[in-house]
């Protein structure tokens, strides 16, 4: 056999893709591969697959290829693709749905983006608000980019653009509870 044998794809692929696309509120057959999404995508140069190609993989039933693409993680969610699509395909939502699905399955083709999101949510859970220093600390330590943005630090601290101590929400428990609730809910669906 040469290339992808489309006849031998597992049936479950189809169902999984269907449910994924449905969550994004989209219909795959609406896409006729005109490429306008990818033409206007600001991040496309950095992507391993064009957003259009990600959709094409889904159309063909090649779920694994779509899930392991970096493109959904590189997507800046700027929504340019969805706004200009001639068939109103919510491409940005599909990319996001793929990223969430991959994340749940532990597929993280772009570790740095994954880590950033993960540690972005950490101060939230702790303090209820974002805290750049906490985020940067954890991110730099885990990503191997130990000294990233280091040169900016003194100036930012001086101008109080970075705060040593995090701002805290009084009812931190409530925020944490929400985050836990959402985690449970997302898994249930």
């Amino acid at each position: 056999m040469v290339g992808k044998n489309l006849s031998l794809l597992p049936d479950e692929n189809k169902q999984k893709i269907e449910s994924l696309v449905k969550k994004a509120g989209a219909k795959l057959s609406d896409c006729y591969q005109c490429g306008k999404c990818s033409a206007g995508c600001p991040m496309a140069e950095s992507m391993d697959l064009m957003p259009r190609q990600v959709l094409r993989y889904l159309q063909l039933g090649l779920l694994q290829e779509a899930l392991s693409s970096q493109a959904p993680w590189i997507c800046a969610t700027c929504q340019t693709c969805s706004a200009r699509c001639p068939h109103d395909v919510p491409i940005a939502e599909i990319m996001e749905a793929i990223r969430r699905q991959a994340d749940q399955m532990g597929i993280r083709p772009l570790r740095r983006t994954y880590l950033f999101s993960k540690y972005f949510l950490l101060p939230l859970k702790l303090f209820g608000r974002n805290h750049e220093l906490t985020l940067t600390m954890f991110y730099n330590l885990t990503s191997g980019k130990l000294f990233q943005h280091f040169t900016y630090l003194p100036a930012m601290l001086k101008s109080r653009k970075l705060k040593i101590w995090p701002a805290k929400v009084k009812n931190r428990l409530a925020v944490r509870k929400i985050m836990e609730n959402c985690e449970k809910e997302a898994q249930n669906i």
Partner: protein
Amino acid sequence: MARAGVFICHCGSNIASVIDVEQVAKSAEQMTGVVYAATNKYACSISGQEMMKQAIIDHQLDRLVIASCTPRMHETTFRKMLGKTSVNPYMLEVANIREQCSWVHTDKEKATAKAIDLVRMSLAKVLKNQPLFTSSIPVCKKCLVIGGGIAGIQAALDIADGGYEVTLVEREPSLGGKMVMLDKTFPTLDCSACISTPKMAEVGAHPRIKLMSSCEVSAVSGYIGNFEVTIKQNPRYVDHDICTGCGLCEEKCPTKLKSSFDQGLGQRKAIYKLFPQAVPAKPVIDAQHCTKLTKDKCGVCAKVCPLGCINFADQESYTTDTFGAIILATGYQLIDWGSHYPEYGGGAYADVISGLQFERLVNASGPTEGKIKRPSDGAQPKSVAIIKCVGSRDVAKAHGYCSRACCMYAAKHAHQTIEKIAGAQVYIFYIDVRTPGKAYEEFYDRTREDGAVYIRGRVSKIYEENGKLICKGEDTLIGKQVTVEVDLVVLETAMEPAANSGQTAALAGVSADKDGWLTEAHPKLRPVETQSAGVFLCGTAQGPKDIPDTVAQASAAAAKVLGLLAKDELETSPMISAVDTSKCSGCRFCEQVCPVKAISMIDIPSIYNGQKVKRTVAQVNSGLCSGCGACSAACRTGCIDLLGFTNKQILEEVDALWQ
């Protein structure tokens, strides 16, 4: 007392081998109302018909049941036969004992019993039949063509050449439509004006064509053969009866405006001919911009006119005429792409133009005398991007359909650019290339050989930077973003139905689809007819198409009209609906369900509690009614009934088996 005759056809052995026809005849003879029953080897044959005619005389029959093949086969034959006897042709029912009995059943006994039942049902119905008479309506041997583009021109010439009078109504001050704006036509690249203006002149000079420019249809009534049409003449402010078209007025007029004919790229005066070869070759005044009409200043044209044709007090006027047939050739317009595509600059960049603007730029009689120049600075573009499907195949922003002609004229524009500008680089952004036409694919091949670069992908954004227009696209075949920096961008924009075409068509009872294209009676078998008998359509009014298809369809519509006008009279089926006004409540239910709008409401004098009053009731237009019976099934009082299939007849047929 009814005197029915029943004839059972053997149809050779087709019927007789399964059904005991003699037995059927014998049973029929016993039925109430039957005075004579017989069998017949071939009822449809001449001898069979003679035998029945004789029986009518011998037994003074006043109605017939013929049990034979399907009525769809020989009902007309038998009606014609009755036309030569004392029996009214509609005092006939055909019992289908072949297709629906002898051919589908094998058990002789049961088939015979069923045949008897079928005869009994037909008899029950025929006993309630009433004589009906076909009427004929005279055909007014004149055709109205609405729209003076190439479709209307072709249809008008074909009909007029066929010997009938034609009135051609055009909204603009001149014939020509869109075709005359084009430079060359694909795939042959012959000059569009050279092939269309002679036809326009022919229309203008044809003894049997009455050309009404600056006119619109404002009302249509009547029906096939006899349409009463009111035509509105918009004021021209120039008396065309006297005007010789000398052009002095146009020369002296001080008001300069953007020419709509040149798509805003050239100029015209406030008194103007649409274009040099306009037909009629006489000017009109643009009332919105003429300073005499708007501010009561100037009036130069009136001063210089040697014949005194200028009439600033001209008013709109109405004329009414009768026509036997109507052709709708209302054409198309291009979408206003600017309002749909802000990502292409929304019209802010002068050098992003539509395909039709390009046609004017490349046309020798256009504003640049055929030199391709950028509208912004008049420079010759060295690189051009052509973008297809702007407004087509785009449900989110404009239209979902394919405009059909753009693939080819995009190729033509690329070819013309390369031909006229040495070393020009042309990029064509496309989604699909569709070339289903004679010598079309070859033309596309040639364009690629010329060096046009086809890029598969829809452009996401066009913007200006440092004097260049930048188009951001994806080449979907390599899966990479591509950018081209060009001097000129041509958008091949979608066709859409001409403004008001839907309203005009509605006047003639023709509907439009969701996109506004007029609906033909059947997409395959009746492509130029409409649901309104006597109203035909052709050209882009029906849907996007190119010139060859438009002309072919126009000639097809003309052929249909010629066939209609060749008749002196139209025979109308008498099997249409009739209203018993004494019972009608005027509830309009019938009007709501009528597919051909044959039912309208009318006030009739009536007596209520001893006083004279006006009562609203339904009336049927016999010229329009197609005899479907939807009205009579809707009517609660049963006061509107379908002749030939009356409630009483059908109820008797239902009851027949159980008497």
